[in-house]
């Protein structure tokens, strides 16, 4: 508990180093040994299904985590010549197959996969966008980002009309030949072209981009913004190495599991969608951890809920009562 509090103040990166240090590795081993001894020594732990499940589950979680840790991989490499890389990054350029795993900063190759991946397509899926009008004095309103929509707001009242909705705004040419065009599919630069009309008939056009707010002059503090929240990032890849290329999708919250590794969508080329970046993590020990999770949850509900309900149903007092 004290170590966890210390780790919280240290931050995630330093905590990870602390909890994977040699003294703490000894601590984890001792904890595992203590749990095993506890289960063997205390008959009550073995007789109660809930307590047994919780303690065996905890053992599996700790054992699986140690097996899958960086140190676990290193030990197996040293002792058994096992070559699985615990984690790395993969930068896939469109239509170029690759099997290299890079270090987190991308400066060196830390290993290779027993198969290759090739990026076939990448998209950013966005939720329907909204034009946002915020008044400095408080209050806000949103208007769906659809061509032709308009709203009146502020004091003096100005009218804001959406002239065009861009999926991927690009500026072509320069100077007087400059053209603003929409090139959907080849990038991700959503924008709104809006026209602001003042009561005296004056009009002005401009562009709104997500994440930026624009103050409208002579409107009593009206601020305009455009939100087009990202729904998901999705890479379409093919796995090469077998007889046929296997198409797969990697998206946020939807990792690809293949050949003993998980691939996570972590970054991409925002301009031209020409590359995507995956975090690659070995799945060693994961199934022991998952089995441990299930046992702990089943055990804890059995011990504290189900037994109380069962004893109530049989008109007995709950344990400890």
């Amino acid at each position: 508990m004290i170590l966890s509090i210390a780790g919280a103040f240290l931050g995630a990166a330093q905590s990870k180093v602390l909890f994977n240090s040699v003294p703490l590795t000894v601590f984890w081993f001792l904890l595992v040994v203590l749990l095993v001894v506890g289960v063997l020594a205390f008959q009550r732990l073995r007789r109660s299904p809930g307590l047994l499940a919780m303690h065996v589950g905890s053992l599996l979680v700790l054992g699986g985590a140690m097996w899958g840790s960086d140190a676990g991989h290193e030990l197996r490499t040293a002792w058994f010549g096992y070559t699985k890389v615990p984690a790395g990054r993969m930068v896939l350029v469109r239509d170029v197959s690759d099997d290299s795993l890079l270090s987190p900063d991308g400066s060196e190759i830390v290993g290779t996969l027993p198969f290759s991946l090739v990026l076939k397509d990448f998209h950013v899926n966005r939720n329907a966008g909204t034009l946002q009008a915020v008044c400095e004095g408080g209050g806000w309103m949103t208007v769906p980002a659809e061509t032709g929509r308009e709203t009146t707001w502020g004091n003096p009242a100005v009218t804001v009309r959406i002239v065009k909705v861009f999926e991927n705004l690009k500026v072509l040419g320069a100077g007087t030949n400059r053209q603003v065009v929409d090139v959907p599919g080849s990038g991700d630069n959503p924008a709104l072209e809006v026209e602001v009309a003042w009561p005296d008939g004056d009009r002005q056009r401009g562009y709104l981009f997500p994440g930026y707010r624009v103050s409208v002059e002579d409107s009593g503090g009206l601020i305009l913004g455009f939100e087009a929240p990202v729904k998901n990032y999705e890479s379409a890849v093919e796995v090469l190495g077998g007889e046929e290329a296997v198409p797969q999708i990697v998206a946020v919250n939807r990792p690809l599991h293949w050949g003993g590794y998980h691939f996570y969508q972590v970054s991409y080329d925002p301009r031209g969608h020409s590359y995507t970046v995956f975090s690659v993590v070995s799945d060693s020990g994961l199934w022991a951890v998952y089995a441990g999770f299930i046992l702990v949850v089943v055990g804890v509900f059995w011990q504290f809920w189900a037994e109380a309900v069962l004893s109530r149903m049989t008109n007995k007092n709950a344990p400890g009562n």
Partner: protein
Amino acid sequence: MHLEIKFSVVGTLIYLAMLLYAASALVMRGGRSRPMGKSLYAVGFLAAAAALILRGYEVEHVPLQNLFEVCLCLGTLIYPISLFCRRFLGVGGEAADAVIGFIVLFPAGFVFSEEPQRLPPALQSFLFVPHVSAYMLSYVILAKAAVPAFARLVWREGPAEAGLVPHELAAYRMTRLGFPLLTLGLILGAWWGKLAWGDYWNWDPKELWSLVSWLVFLGYLHFRSIYGTRFARANAAFVVAGLVAIMITLSWVNLARMFAGLHSYAA
């Protein structure tokens, strides 16, 4: 951080719920005028529930994303938990529950912004609702457990009302109810972390404080399992310490810059 008054319908409903919770706590204190107090508490719950539903309708997702929505949810959950605990566990303390409801609604009413936010991609998971719901339920239950524990720590055994269990046992029963949900929240979070970030444990400050909360209650359950009610005040101190850890996990970790991490979007 500055206090602001909300003039929206959701804000108005929150203030109404706070007012009714405060009034019901005043009416019910010392066990007086219980029917009147209970009615005020029930109407306060309806106002909080209406605010929560309306908020969900406005933001188009289950309103559990940021601390404004979390506080609103906590303030709504307290009433059904009060009813459940009296009916099935023999635990009373509705006046204190109404105070808890008032306290958790206060930041929603005056501190946190209600400007809607879309869920970022990492939060758009089927685990979002079960993970956060399990935590919210456990937090309210364990906060309620800390009230009789605190009473046992400071005063002697109670309560005066017939049919209700003593403070020490009340805290224990509430912890038995809340701890499995706390465990479920932790493990669902680990599973989600694996799906979204690549690891079930990222040593993030929020994760570590959640672990601290869990370990405090785990320590309490072990201690009570070994010694029973022999050290009743120590038992009570564990439960109160657990609530302190929860408060740090829920608020301080999200608000203090010293704890920036993967859960920073929840602020």
